[in-house]
C-alpha cells in the first residue's frame, strides 16, 4: 500500500512537533526516517497510526484521503505499528500479547494451545525465534521487540511502521530483524522505519527521509555519503554561545568514578558495563542518542535505581547503594532531564523549590527562617533572571524555561563537588541558555566536576573539556579537542564498532 501525507501539522501547545510534513512512501519498499531526538518522527508515525490526530493536513492511503479516529481505523486499513515505547501486557505470554484483540470468541474459552501454535507458525514463517509460552515481562527487551513485530504481523498488515526498532537490539538481533523486514518488503508490504543508526539505513533502506525540528529537511539515497547524511541530521553547527577556555585547574583525583556499571533498561539499551570518571574542575560531556543508557545513568547516579552490577563512587566514597540523601550530602548535584518528574515539585512554591535540599540549614529554633530564606531566594531569582510574579507562586505555573532556571539555581546554591547536568538547557531561550552555560563553566572554574549529558551535540561540544559517546550502554573512548564532529556524530549512530561492544545480551 502506498502511504502519503500532505502538509501534516501537529502542535503540542506552542510546540510545533510536525510542521507541514509531506512525504510519500511507495509500496514494497523499506523507508528510513532519520532525525535528531525530538525531530518529530514518533509524532509523525503516531498520526499515521491514528494514535494522534493531525491539526492540519491530510493523510492518504493509496492516494485516498483518510480520517483516522483511532488505531482501529488504521488497523482496519492494514497498518501496523511497533512503538518506540513498547505496548505489551507484562503478565501475558507472548502468544497472548501477539493475538491480543484477535482472540476468537469461543464459549469454551480461549484455546491457548491453538493460539500458541498460531503464533509459533507465524514466527516460523518470518524466521523469528521466540517461545510463544514465555511470559513477556520475563523477556529481554530484544525479545519483547520481536513480540511487538509479531503483533503487527499477526494482523496481516500491508504497512508496518517501526519506531526505532533497533535501539534495543544487539547487532545480531538487528540483522535478524532486517531479514524479516526484507522478507516483508519482498511480499509487497510497505515498511516505515525510524533509526538513528546510519549503517542500518545503508543496509536495509531503499529511501531515506531526514527530519529536523518537525520539518522534512531532505531525502536522499541510502548509499549517499555518510557525512552528507550526518550533516543533514545535525544541521549547521550552531554558533557557540560561549567561547571555550580550558579549565584553569583540573584536579588529579576522580570526584566521580563509575566502574563496569550495568543497569536494566525499561526502554532502550540500559547500561552494559559503563566506565566513566570525572575529575574536579573539568566538564565531561556525554554525547549520544537518547535511549542508549542516559536515563539509567542519571537514575543510578541520583540513587533512584540500583545498578545490577558495578560501582559508583563520589569523592572516594562508594555510593553504589547509598540513598539519594547521602549522595546529596557528599556534594552531588543534579539537573534532571525529566524536570517534572524529578527536578522540581510542581505543587510547591518557587521559593520552597529553591531551598529544598537546604531546608534544614535555613532552620532557626526548629522553624524555617524566612528572613534569610527570602533574601537568599531573591538573590537567586535575580542571578538567574527567573521571570515570575512572586516567589510564593507555584513553580508549576512558571513557563518551562523559568522552571529550569529555578532548578539550576537550586542545585548551584549548594556546595557541590560534582554536578550531573542532563539536558540543562532543554526548553529555555537563548539568553537563559547562555546564562546557564556560563554558570556551569564558572562552577567548573571553581573546581567542581561536571558531567554533562545532552542530546544536543552542539551543547556538548561547546562546553566540554572531554567528550565520551554513549551508545548501546557503553561509553566509547573519549575524544579530545579539537573535535571531529563527523566522527562523533557517526559514533552516536553506532558507526564505530567499539561503540557497540558488549551489547550482545539483548
Amino acid at each position: 500500500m502506498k502511504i502519503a501525507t500532505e502538509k501534516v501539522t501537529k502542535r503540542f501547545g506552542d510546540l510545533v512537533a510536525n510542521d507541514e510534513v509531506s512525504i510519500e512512501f511507495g509500496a514494497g519498499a523499506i523507508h528510513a526516517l532519520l532525525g535528531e531526538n525530538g525531530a518529530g518522527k514518533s509524532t509523525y508515525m503516531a498520526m499515521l497510526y491514528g494514535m494522534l490526530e493531525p491539526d492540519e493536513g491530510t493523510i492518504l492511503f493509496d492516494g485516498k484521503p483518510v480520517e483516522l479516529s483511532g488505531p482501529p481505523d488504521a488497523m482496519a486499513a492494514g497498518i501496523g505499528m511497533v512503538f518506540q515505547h513498547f505496548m505489551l501486557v507484562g503478565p501475558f505470554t507472548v502468544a497472548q500479547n501477539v493475538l491480543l484483540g484477535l482472540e476468537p470468541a469461543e464459549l469454551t474459552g480461549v484455546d491457548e494451545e491453538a493460539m500458541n501454535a498460531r503464533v509459533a507458525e507465524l514466527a516460523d514463517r518470518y524466521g523469528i525465534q521466540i517461545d510463544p509460552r514465555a511470559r513477556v515481562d520475563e523477556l529481554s527487551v530484544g525479545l519483547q521487540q520481536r513480540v511487538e513485530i509479531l503483533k503487527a504481523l499477526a494482523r496481516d498488515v500491508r504497512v508496518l511502521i517501526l519506531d526505532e526498532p533497533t535501539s534495543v537490539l544487539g547487532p545480531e538481533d538487528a540483522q535478524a530483524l532486517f531479514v524479516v523486514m526484507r522478507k516483508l518488503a519482498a511480499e509487497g508490504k510497505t515498511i516505515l522505519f525510524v533509526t538513528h543508526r546510519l549503517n542500518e539505513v545503508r543496509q536495509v533502506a531503499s529511501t531515506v527521509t531526514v527530519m529536523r525540528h518537525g520539518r522534512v529537511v531532505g531525502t536522499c539515497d541510502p548509499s549517499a555519503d555518510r557525512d552528507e547524511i550526518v550533516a543533514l541530521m545535525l544541521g549547521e553547527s550552531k554558533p557557540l554561545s560561549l567561547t571555550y577556555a580550558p579549565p584553569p585547574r583540573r584536579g588529579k583525583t576522580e570526584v566521580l568514578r563509575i566502574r563496569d556499571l550495568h543497569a536494566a533498561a525499561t526502554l532502550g539499551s540500559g547500561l552494559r558495563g559503563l566506565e566513566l570518571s570525572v575529575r574536579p574542575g573539568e566538564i565531561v560531556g556525554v554525547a549520544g542518542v537518547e535511549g542508549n543508557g542516559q536515563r539509567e545513568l542519571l537514575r543510578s547516579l541520583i540513587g533512584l535505581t540500583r545498578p545490577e552490577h558495578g560501582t559508583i563512587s563520589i569523592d572516594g566514597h562508594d555510593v553504589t547503594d547509598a540513598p539519594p540523601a547521602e549522595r546529596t550530602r557528599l556534594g552531588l548535584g543534579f539537573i534532571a532531564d525529566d524536570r517534572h518528574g524529578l527536578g522540581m515539585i510542581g505543587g510547591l512554591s518557587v521559593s520552597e523549590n529553591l531551598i529544598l535540599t537546604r531546608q534544614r540549614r535555613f532552620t532557626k529554633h526548629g522553624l524555617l527562617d524566612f528572613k534569610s530564606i527570602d533574601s537568599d531566594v531573591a538573590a537567586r531569582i535575580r542571578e538567574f533572571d527567573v521571570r515570575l510574579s512572586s516567589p510564593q507562586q507555584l513553580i508549576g505555573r512558571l513557563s518551562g524555561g523559568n522552571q529550569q532556571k529555578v532548578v539550576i539555581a537550586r542545585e548551584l546554591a549548594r556546595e557541590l563537588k560534582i554536578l550531573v547536568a542532563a539536558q540543562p538547557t532543554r526548553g529555555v531561550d537563548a539568553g537563559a541558555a547562555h546564562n546557564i552555560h556560563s554558570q556551569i563553566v564558572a562552577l567548573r572554574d571553581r573546581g567542581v566536576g561536571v558531567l554533562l549529558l545532552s542530546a544536543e551535540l552542539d551543547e556538548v561540544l561547546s562546553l566540554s573539556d572531554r567528550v565520551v559517546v554513549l551508545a548501546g550502554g557503553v561509553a566509547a573512548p573519549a575524544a579530545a579537542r579539537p573535535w571531529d564532529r563527523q566522527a562523533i556524530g557517526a559514533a552516536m549512530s553506532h558507526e564505530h564498532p567499539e561503540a557497540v561492544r558488549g551489547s550482545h545480551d539483548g
Partner: protein
Amino acid sequence: MADTMRETSAPNGSESRKTRAVVPFQTFLLYAGSALIALVVGAVLIIVTSSDLRARYSYFFAVPGDAIGATAHRISEVYGTLLTGAVGSPSAYLAFIRAPGADTAGVAFSPISETLVAAAPLIVAGLGISLAFRAGLINVGGPGQAALGALTAAVVGYWLDLPFPLPLLMAAGAAVLVGGLWGALVGWLKARFGAHEVVTTIMLNYAATNLVVLALSFSFLRRPGRSDPITPEISEGARLPGLFGSDFRVNIGILVAIAAAVLFWVLLNRTPQGLELRAVGQSRQAATALGINHRRVWVGAMAGSGGLVALGAAIHVMGVEHAMTPGTAGTLGIDALVVALLGRTGPVGCCVAGVIVGGMRAGGTQVQALTGVPYDIVTCIQAVLVLLIATPRVAKALFRLRKLSIKPSTTHGWAA
C-alpha cells in the same frame, strides 16, 4: 478552604487581571454549587419519605399548587430547623437582647454551644486526616486511632487524681502518644513492607476496637460495681473546663482545636519537616531524588495523623463523655475523613468544615426531634457535598467552571 483558594488563585505574572479575579470566583462557585446540589438532593429525600407529600403529589396534575405549597413549607421547615438547630433562632436572640438573663441566654446560645462541642473533636481529628493526605497517604484508620486515644484519655484521666491542669495535660498527652504509635505502625508497615495504608488501617481498626473491648473487660479498668464495659468517670482535674458556665456544654476543646489548626499550619508551612512532608505528598519520586527520606516522612506523617485523631477523641472524652465505653468516639474517625475532604485538607478549611459538620450534627438532632425527618438527612447532604468537592471534575463539568484548576491527585493507587 482559604488554603485551597491560595493555591488555585496564585497570582501569575502573565495572567491577566481578569483571570486573577475569575479563579477565586470559580472556586466560590464550586462550593456554592455543590452546596446547592446537596441541598436539592436532601430536599428530594425529604419529599420521598414524607407520606403526606407523596399523597399530595399523587394528585399533582389536578391541584399542583397544593403539592408545591406543601413541599415548600415542609422543606423550609426542615432546613429552617437545621439552621436554627445549628446556629440558633433569631427570635431567641431577640428575646435575649430584650431580656438578657440566664434562661434567655440558654435558649439563644445553646445551639451554637452544641455546634462547637461537636466541632472541636471533628476539627482536630480532621486535621489529623489532612496531615496524612498532605503526605500522600489516605488514613482510613481514624476509628481505631480514635478508639485507642479515647481509651487512653479515659484511663489516664481517672488514674491521675492530681490538681487541675496536670491530669488533663497528661491524659491528652498519653492519648496523642498512643494514637501516634498506632498510626506510626501503619507508616512503618508501608515504609518497610509496602503494605498499602488503606488496607492496614482498616484491619487495624478492627484490632483496635477489639482491644478496647478487651481492655474494658479487665476489672481494674472497669467502673467499680459495674459488669459492663465502662471505665470510671475521669477525675475532675482531667475534665475540659467549660467556656461559659455549666449551662453550656461548650468547653475549651474548641480553643484547643483552633490552636491545633494554627500548629498544623505552622508545622506544614513554617518548619523544614512540614516542607519535606508536602514535598513527599506532592511527588514522592522528586522528593526522594532531592534527598528526602520518604519512609521517615511516611512514618512521621502517620504518627502525627494518628496522634491528632486520638487527641480529637480525647477532647470528646474529657469534654463530654468523661468515661469510655466501646462505642465512645466510634464515628469520629469517619466523620474526620469527611471534614478533611470537605476542608480540602487545609487548616482553615478543616476549621470551617468541622464547624459545618458539627453544626449539621446539632441541627440534625433538632430536625429529627422536631420535624420527624431522620437525622441521616444530614449524613446524606454531607456525603453529596463531599463527593462534589472531592471530585471537582464533576462539579467543573456540571457548572461549566472552565477556569477552575484541579489539584493534582495526591493519592496514587495501590503502588506503595
